[in-house]
């Protein structure tokens, strides 16, 4: 595609990467694209720290006697895995990297509303993450990522307060980023970009940000109370002093259940983009998808009690929360059906992002359906706090979110770096992720049904077969996650140059050069079309600013 096509007469402007090369030009940048890269670096670091802990956990569980690590060490390992993965990888993963990079581009803005706040958010995030990791290395914390009371305030030994403070500060980072996204989506959309012309990724990030804004402060308050209680010995949640430990669970899950939607909603947004583009077909039921995202975000606030069905909450509230949990599954089911229906009457190419997206739909469906089993009150009595729950939420968060994250990363890699990644390796990585993932977590459903509780460093010998299978799968998964790190890094230096729109996609982010200039667009785009105007008959497409193109030569042709 020539530069003229995208409204740039003459020379292509300098990209945001080539603007300046000093360290301070990165550390003090206000450009949302550079901040996204900074987030990407921090998050990748934390991902591998958390993944390393996971690998050690699986190594310990190879042997039922659990002799590799002392129980104190094992408890710290799974706490570290949980805290790092939840707050320092999954929650910021898609929003802070892809969201930060793409949201302004997709709405046709020059930057986010508050660029300095955006940079501040990265500093808070990185500081809190390093803080958490420092305390993990000088002694750690053995409460599990859930900080359950009264264990965390009166019985745990370790840096509980330090961990709570890390999560507390991280919460500010989350709120700052979410605030930026909400305000930018409201105020900075390009002319003609109405709400129902927004790409689903923007809708997803918007819905996520609402959840972040309303849920995170409750976690902050909860952990502040835990830290105060542990420090001064007051009795807010301590039953000996008249407090109520179940209240802690209510407050904690009031955040932490919506947090699951913080993790999965952006992934749904990414996958909608990917499926539509590689199926060369408009997303099936666009408006339904928007409403589904918003209703998940809203109903998601009223299901937290399903983490407490066996905790002695009243029978009435258990029934209510079970009902709401089933209802929140309806919009998720709609999304799965709509993605599947998008594949009908389409023209599919199986490039790596599409493989990740298809993997996402499969794994998310398994995760969602096992969630139905857990939402069934009677089944939950047996399965609560067993490996069945572990497998279920890993299917959603790892099978779902991480697959979508990798898919999105590959899809937008040419836009972010201006380079193509090696397609063949990427396809292998995508397939390996799917295989390794199922290998790791399907046996855990069985372990859970057999009654293996979570957070056990040693277990009954007759469960060893399934644990060994799971650990073997984890080693495949580890390869599948390290592989992209290698070839994506390689592609930055040696990759083929990417054009401005290598996939022939319709979004505004593809209507500027790759990588985009600091100002994003040479001139403000004017939106005249719906998103996803692909034509499955011949693969042609119409971009959101109304230009029609023939199908690009990509997919199988480029391998």
């Amino acid at each position, binding site marked *: 595609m020539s530069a003229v096509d995208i409204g740039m007469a003459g020379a292509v402007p300098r990209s945001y990467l080539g603007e300046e090369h000093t360290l301070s030009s990165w550390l003090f940048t206000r450009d949302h694209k550079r901040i996204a890269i900074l987030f990407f670096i921090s998050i990748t670091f934390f991902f591998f720290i958390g993944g390393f802990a996971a690998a050690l956990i699986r190594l310990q569980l190879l042997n039922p006697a659990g002799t590799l690590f002392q129980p104190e060490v094992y408890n710290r390992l799974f706490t570290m895995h949980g805290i790092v993965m939840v707050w320092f990888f999954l929650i910021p993963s898609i929003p802070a990297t892809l969201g930060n990079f793409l949201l302004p581009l997709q709405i046709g803005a*020059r930057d986010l509303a508050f660029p300095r706040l955006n940079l501040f958010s990265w500093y808070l995030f990185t500081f809190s993450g390093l803080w958490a990791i420092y305390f993990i290395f000088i002694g750690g914390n053995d409460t599990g990522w859930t900080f359950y009371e009264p264990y965390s305030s009166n019985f745990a030994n370790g840096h509980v307060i330090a961990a709570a403070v890390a999560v507390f500060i991280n919460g500010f980072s989350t709120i700052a980023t979410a605030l930026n996204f909400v305000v930018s989506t409201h*105020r900075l959309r390009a002319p003609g970009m109405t709400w129902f012309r927004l790409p689903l990724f923007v809708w997803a990030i918007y819905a996520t940000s609402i959840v972040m804004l309303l849920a995170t402060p409750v976690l902050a*308050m909860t952990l502040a109370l835990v830290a105060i209680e542990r420090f001064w010995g007051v*009795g807010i949640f301590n039953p000996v002093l008249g407090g109520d430990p179940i209240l802690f669970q209510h407050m904690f899950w009031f955040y932490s259940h919506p947090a699951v939607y913080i993790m999965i909603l952006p992934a749904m947004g990414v996958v909608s983009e990917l499926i539509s583009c590689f199926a060369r077909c408009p997303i099936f039921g666009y408006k339904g998808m928007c409403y589904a995202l918003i209703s998940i975000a809203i109903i998601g606030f009223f299901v937290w009690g399903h983490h407490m069905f066996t905790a002695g909450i009243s029978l009435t509230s258990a029934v209510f929360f079970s009902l709401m949990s089933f209802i929140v599954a309806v919009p998720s089911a709609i999304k799965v059906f709509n993605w599947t229906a998008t594949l009908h009457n389409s023209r599919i190419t199986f490039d790596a992002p599409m493989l990740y997206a298809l993997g996402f739909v499969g794994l998310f469906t398994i995760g969602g359906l096992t969630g139905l089993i857990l939402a069934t009150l009677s089944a939950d009595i047996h399965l609560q706090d067993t490996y069945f729950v572990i497998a279920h939420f890993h299917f959603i968060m790892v099978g779902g979110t991480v697959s979508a994250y990798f898919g999105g990363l590959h899809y937008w890699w040419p836009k972010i770096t201006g380079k193509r990644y090696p397609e063949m390796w990427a396809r292998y990585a995508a397939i390996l992720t799917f295989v390794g993932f199922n290998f790791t977590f399907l046996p855990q459903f069985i372990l859970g049904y057999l009654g293996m509780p979570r957070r056990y460093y040693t277990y009954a010998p007759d469960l060893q077969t399934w644990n060994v299978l799971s650990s073997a799968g984890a080693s495949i998964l580890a390869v599948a996650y390290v592989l992209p790190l290698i070839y994506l890094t390689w592609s930055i230096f040696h990759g083929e140059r990417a054009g401005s729109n290598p996939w022939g996609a319709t979004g505004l982010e593809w209507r500027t050069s790759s990588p985009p200039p600091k100002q994003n667009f040479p001139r403000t785009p004017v939106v005249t079309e719906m998103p996803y105007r692909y034509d499955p008959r011949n693969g042609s497409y119409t971009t959101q600013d109304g230009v029609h193109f023939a199908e690009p030569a990509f997919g199988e042709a480029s391998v």
Partner: protein
Amino acid sequence: MFSGRLQEQYTDSSQQSETAQLGMWVFIATEVMFFGALIFSYMIYRVAYPEQFRLAGHDSFILLGSINQALLITSSLSMVLAVRAAKADQQRALVLLLAVTAALGLAFLGVKGYEYAQDVAAHSVPVVDYIFKPGEHRPTEIFWCFYFIATGLHAIHLTVGIALVLILMVRAAQGAFSADYDAPLEVIGLYWSFVDCVWFFLFACIYPLGRAGP
């Protein structure tokens, strides 16, 4: 936030100013959830231990709390008048009203500090120095925990507010604001009113307890 320059992501200054205000409203929404979580858990215990909370609430200093309530309401008035002065281009009145707002905020903190001293003298500090009065049991300590956490957090918010108003005052004295450009005043004004509103709720939670009825 304090620079009058148009940032590159905006098309004009009214868009920039509206965006800043929306940002503050969204921030206030998160703050409502933050204080809401605290007040909600307070309510849970108040319902669980109604008589104990009445006993504990009776030991709070309602006169000091009421003075503070009056100080904060007045400060909100002066803050709003300051915004109006800016819109009317009355520079001297603007600086003066901001000074009054900050002074009222500081007075609140002064009274609050005195009240804390009284609480300490009455041995109402949980765990550290707490004496159960006749009929009081453990739950009264929980009341005082919430008292100190809630009023402490509110005082931190107010301190931030005073600092922001003082910065505004200095900038106003330099002539930074005018009828055309008053966005920071609007934004900080919103924040100030929010902090004021929080005190309404805290006052209702803490002081009237155990004072009504026979």
